């Protein structure tokens, strides 16, 4: 693959050489983490990878519009969240819980009890309503503040608090049931 943009093909003069190199560098550094983020928000691995590809493509298109290239990672994170939401909207009429692909999670037999609990908790998060699931992932995976989540999702802080409260209450209940 082209890491420095010198073989970018016709039209590479319309993009700064550095933009392609920068996007590629970001891809190598963050692709795996972003697939993880997308996988937490959608129910199938293939779609998660597609969402990540779309995010990098979008970043490349808008690279010249970025006022500060250091915001690119945040842009990618946000694109993943929006992309995942679009994916869910497209599937909303047929949505049902789909377990992760075999081989992606460790087998139950090999998991120790603590690991199984963690796995069960992750499954419970997947079963939350989509907006609650987004809030939980943004809050506890990306460590965003409630204000940041509100801005990202285009809702009020109060709404974020409400979704977070409902989600944690539901998860707490599930954990108590396992105890």
């Amino acid at each position, binding site marked *: *693959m*082209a890491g420095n943009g010198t073989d*970018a*093909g*016709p*039209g590479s003069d*319309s*993009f700064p050489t550095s933009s392609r190199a920068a996007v*590629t560098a970001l*891809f*190598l550094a963050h*692709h*795996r*983490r972003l*697939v*993880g983020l997308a*996988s937490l928000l959608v129910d199938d*691995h293939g779609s*998660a*990878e597609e969402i*990540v*590809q779309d995010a*990098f*493509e*979008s970043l*490349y298109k*808008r690279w010249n*519009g970025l006022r500060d290239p250091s915001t690119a990672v945040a842009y990618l994170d*946000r*694109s993943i969240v929006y992309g995942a939401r*679009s994916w869910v*909207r*497209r599937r909303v009429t047929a949505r049902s819980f789909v377990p992760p*692909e075999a*081989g*992606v*999670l460790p087998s139950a037999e090999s998991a120790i009890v603590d690991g199984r*609990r963690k*796995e069960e*908790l*992750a499954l419970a*998060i997947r079963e939350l309503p989509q907006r609650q699931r987004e809030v*939980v*992932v943004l809050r*506890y*995976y990306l*460590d965003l503040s409630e*204000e940041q989540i*509100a*801005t990202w999702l*285009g*809702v*009020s*802080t*109060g*709404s974020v608090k*409400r979704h977070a409260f409902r989600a*944690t209450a539901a*998860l707490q209940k599930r*954990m108590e049931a396992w105890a």
Partner: protein
Amino acid sequence: MNDLESRLSAALHTEADELSAAVDLPRAAVELESRLDRLERDRHRRTWVIGLAAVVAIALAVLVGVRLAAPHIDTEPVSPTTSYTSQGFVVPFTANVPDWAAGPTPPVTGDRRIVWQNDQCWTDCSPGQDAKLIVLAPQVAFGATESDRLVIPSAQGYLDHLTALQDAHLLTLSGVHPATFAGHEATVLDVVASSAVPGGLGCAGSGTVDTAEPSCWSFLPGTRVHLAVIRADTRPYYELGSVAPPLLVLLRADKGNPQLATYVADVDHLLATVQIPEPPAPTYRSNSTVMPFTLVLPPWATRVSPATAPSGRLVTWEVSCESAVASSAADCAHPSRIFGAMSPVGSGPDPVGSLPDKPGVTIVGEFSSQLVDRRSAQFATVVATHDVPAALGCDAAGSCPVLAAGTTTRVADIAEHGKPPLIVWESWTTGAPGTDGLAADFDAAVQSIRFGT
């Protein structure tokens, strides 16, 4: 971070790591390269087309002698539109809605809000492309904090609210100018937020905590709001005694949206085409041949269409909180109410006088007698603790209004010897806020009755 939050964080990181462990990075990188190559080819092609078009345009301009310094046209062309008629909105209106919003996905509607969205955004909205077209009859708006809640009293009060947010360095207002839409005075302005003001635009409901869309609308950084504050009467049925809050028509779009100027022009076009019909006359004329009459309705009932029973002996005006105000009974903080007039069948003995004998009915205060259009009328106020069927008689066999449990009813029995009586009543949720003046409004409505006209 408490124990649950720590576990959540750990579980999410573990799962994300495990899910991404299966990623084939080299294959993914090749796919990205392929996508970027395609993008560059498209960009290259567009550059050539634009360049060619520019050359042709310049050549044409020279040919027809058009000066390049000709006056600048600062009005964006508007998008194609579709005529829209509101359904169940508190201020009925028609307007031409731009096609980018009008279809094919229908708007989110309610009695105090209608929301269209850039149609692409219903399914796949890229960052920076969000655009919403909103018609809102807000009841409250929030200031710098959620505890700073303003019950919107008037258009000027709403504009003062925006000014206060600007003074607090949260908003920047620009382009403020007066206008007239559908015969109503209005103020048009643009708003840019420097930080989020949840619920700052206004809320369709009157809740104190929930500022979530689509009921509540916020100012968000990175967006521009093009807003018309119209002095139309948007008072809900339960607050008709107050000053009329305004009607808002607005665009909220990402500042970076390349279509922003067109969208703003589209909103201006929508405003220019909006039509708001005159409210219905407050005088009701009965079609009944049994007992024709006219009356001036209580103010709230002028907002409601009457329902006439098949018998022709019963007409009611009814608002239920759940259908008119909120989406669920749990959110229903305002009283349901019904106003009715009935000429009962049969020779029921004095329905009002017999009310104290009915189980579940408590008389409040004293009976009183008045003259209504030179006929004798007996008035009473009762509270029902249980459902009381046929308490006021029946308009047909098996069709008898019920005094519902938990309601207060003011009733008048208007009678004249040799003529069928007319029972008029109004019921509302006992003790609900905003019901203090209902009995007086009811008495005034009854006193306005004129028979035989």
